[in-house]
């Protein structure tokens, strides 16, 4: 028996599953640097606006999380509080992560040492400003 899901929720769920799939593709490990991985980061960026716009249709479920799980870890450290970040902070960070992912592969498009230095300096300034 399947549960009927309205169109809006279905699109929101599909968006999140697609984003997960593209993120997984983007972080796959390979032996050599492959420029096409920047495409996966770019596709992640495409899904972000719809992710943000559909967040309002979800409901937080605090009961899905617990710090009691830490008791099972092989550590003598007492349980530490859960780290909670706001949706906006998480969204901004994910956006930057995907942008850095697409830009990082630009390093393969340089011609000559001085050009590489200029490009790296420029990217460094953009990332940390």
């Amino acid at each position, binding site marked *: 028996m399947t549960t009927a899901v309205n169109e809006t929720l279905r699109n929101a769920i599909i968006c999140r*599953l697609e984003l997960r799939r593209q993120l*997984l593709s983007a972080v796959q490990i390979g032996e*050599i640097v492959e420029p096409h991985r920047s495409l996966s980061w770019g596709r992640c960026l495409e899904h972000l606006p719809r992710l943000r716009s559909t967040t309002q249709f979800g409901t937080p479920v605090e009961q899905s*999380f*617990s710090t009691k799980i830490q008791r099972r870890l092989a550590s003598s450290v007492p349980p*530490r509080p859960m780290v909670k970040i706001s949706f906006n902070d998480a969204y901004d960070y*994910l956006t930057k992560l995907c942008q850095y*992912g697409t830009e990082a592969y630009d390093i393969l498009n340089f011609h000559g040492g001085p050009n590489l230095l200029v490009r790296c300096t420029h990217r460094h300034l953009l990332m940390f400003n």
Partner: protein
Amino acid sequence: MAWHMGNPLSQTLFTSLYLDRLLWPEPKTLAQARFERDEIPEGNLMLHSILRAFCLGLIKACGLVHQTICTEHYYEVGQTQYIENRSVYVTLAKPM
């Protein structure tokens, strides 16, 4: 995202009851990584199919990120440096 920002596993991913059900006891195969281990669930497609797929994708992506950082050459100058490296892992040089 809290883990990607550099916060510990115990305070982020390992606080999710859903991830805990998938990962403990440690599954040997992908098929074993289910919320209900004792029987194959027949109902509640949303939970056992969709949420499970999302959680598995989340776990695997974080695992690949962790593996990427651990296999790269870097010099730790302290905990802060490790956290910074993890949060901007895409800038690490890969062997070419």
